[in-house]
């Protein structure tokens, strides 16, 4: 089945500047115009389901982490073993932010550091100091309650929506939730979590990871010396299925070797090696160990991937790693609208999240998680801690190559004579679909 982004049906009339009118063309102003960024701030972010944190950031009741988007600060709080709440981060008295960064509200109390007002983890007020000084209306329990966002969880992530009228998460994630379910994201735990501040629009940065079309030119370690058409994009990341909510995923690889004249065994091993050294995430020491073990066995070239997966599942069984069965209807590579992109393999995944950096349309916060399904005896992991910002030049090679292109694109969009970016409806289908969905929000 091949479903490309819907190019014919652009339902949104151009009710705002720089709307996408021809699905193949993206007006450059969407990447730098302050008015367009303001429109996103007003119409997109306050109404869209977005990942606020991972569940493993707040493992125990009372644990919290602060999520920031534009000028909004939201506290995501583990209320109990199986409930999570999200509160706008402001004291109901005089607006003081109640928490910063990440931590734990001990004793089930969220305490304002200014005058000592307190709230229970369910958002109800538990204490107002010297309350005799306030009118009854100011002390009304409903008035004193912390203001909340909608909360939902999927793939081990906590999603929030600031809009109380927004449809529930399950509805917003229709299609992608089912498509990526076989990957087992919710079993994965954080190996590392780093970020970089990129001098580019948030969409520009994430779109570098929403297609595989750039692999031939941008990543020599992955195209392995194949020039131009000798690297076959259709073998890996050439077909996408897109969903109305803005999400999409790449269909399974064809099983063909993308590099002309290369054996499957050589390609498979070099691909894993390149991603191990080039990302330290997609492939990890675990897979390198398994791959090394296979080199000592006599395996026919074309059967190498099968042998690898056989050894991987055997190893996982022995180590108590609950790998889900191989996915048959997805490659796993996908985009969760508006700003999460996942690139999984072998019970691991790279996860990207990109947010505008405050109100600056040409700066973004780019985060990368390396996650993995842990072995049984790995024990309870620590709460992950965000590292960085890590400068571009200190990232592994493949990330560096992508970041440099993002910086160069942001430079290019300002040049005279360039009105639009051009997109392939097939190879860049997830980007087309994302812009279409953004415009649905902006037109509301």
């Amino acid at each position, binding site marked *: 089945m091949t479903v490309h982004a819907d190019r014919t049906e652009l339902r949104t009339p151009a009710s705002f500047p720089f709307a996408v009118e021809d699905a193949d063309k993206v007006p450059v102003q969407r990447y730098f115009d302050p008015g367009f960024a303001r429109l996103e701030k007003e119409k997109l972010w306050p109404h869209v389901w977005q990942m606020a944190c991972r569940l493993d950031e707040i493992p125990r009741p009372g644990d919290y982490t602060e999520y920031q988007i534009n000028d909004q600060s939201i506290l995501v709080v583990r209320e109990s073993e199986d409930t999570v709440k999200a509160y706008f981060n402001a004291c109901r008295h005089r607006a003081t932010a109640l928490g910063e960064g990440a931590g734990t509200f001990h*004793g089930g109390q969220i*305490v304002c550091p200014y005058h000592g007002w307190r709230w229970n983890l369910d958002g109800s007020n538990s204490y107002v100091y010297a309350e005799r000084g306030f009118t009854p209306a100011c002390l009304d329990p409903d008035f004193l309650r912390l203001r909340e966002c909608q909360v939902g969880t999927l793939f081990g992530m906590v999603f929030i929506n600031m809009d109380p009228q927004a449809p529930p998460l399950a509805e917003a994630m229709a299609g992608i939730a089912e498509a990526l379910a076989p990957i087992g994201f919710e079993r994965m735990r954080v190996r590392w979590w780093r970020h970089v501040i990129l001098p580019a629009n948030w969409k520009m940065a994430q779109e570098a990871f929403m297609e595989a079309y750039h692999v031939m030119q941008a990543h020599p370690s992955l195209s392995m010396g194949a020039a131009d058409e000798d690297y076959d994009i259709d073998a890996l990341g050439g077909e996408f299925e897109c969903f109305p909510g803005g999400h999409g995923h790449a269909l399974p690889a064809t099983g063909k070797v993308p590099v002309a004249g290369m054996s499957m065994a050589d390609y498979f091993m070099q691909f894993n090696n390149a991603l191990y050294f080039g990302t330290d995430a997609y492939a990890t020491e675990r897979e390198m160990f398994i791959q090394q073990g296979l080199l000592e066995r006599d395996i026919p070239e074309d059967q190498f991937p099968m042998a690898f997966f056989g050894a991987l599942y055997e190893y996982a069984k022995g180590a108590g790693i609950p790998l889900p069965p191989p996915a048959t209807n997805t490659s796993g590579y996908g985009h969760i609208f508006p700003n999460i992109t996942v690139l999984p393999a072998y019970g691991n995944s790279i996860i990207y999240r990109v947010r505008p950096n405050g109100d600056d349309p040409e700066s973004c916060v780019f985060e990368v998680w390396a996650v993995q399904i842990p072995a049984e005896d790995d024990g309870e992991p620590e709460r992950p801690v965000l590292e960085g910002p890590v400068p571009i030049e200190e990232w592994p090679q493949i990330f560096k190559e992508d970041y440099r292109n993002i910086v160069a694109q942001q430079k290019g969009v300002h040049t005279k004579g360039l009105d639009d970016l051009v997109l392939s409806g097939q190879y860049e289908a997830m980007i087309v679909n994302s812009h279409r969905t953004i415009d649905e929000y902006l037109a509301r």
Partner: protein
Amino acid sequence: MADGRVRVEPEGFELSVRPGETVFEAALRSGVTWPTICYGQVRCTACALRVLDGHQNLGPAGSTEQGVLRQITGRRRQWSARDTRLACRLTVTGDVTVEKKGAKPPADPQST
């Protein structure tokens, strides 16, 4: 690693503290009443205790705790810098005896 036993004077009750857990967290978990107004955010100093014995079994004091402790040590004679810690940051690796006025065991002693 085994739990540390913290004896709390002057009430004279014992508190079992898990590895990595703070004395304040152990107190809340055990139903012990322990003075605080910031609830473990390393801000208010109301949970400060005096270490009477077992100094070798104290976890290290980080810079945040030390910074907050400077507000109460030295100025008042009863809080010597050497013996004063914040319960909300103090971990233990063995038996310790502390003094904390206002700390009270749970009404039902079984719940510790």
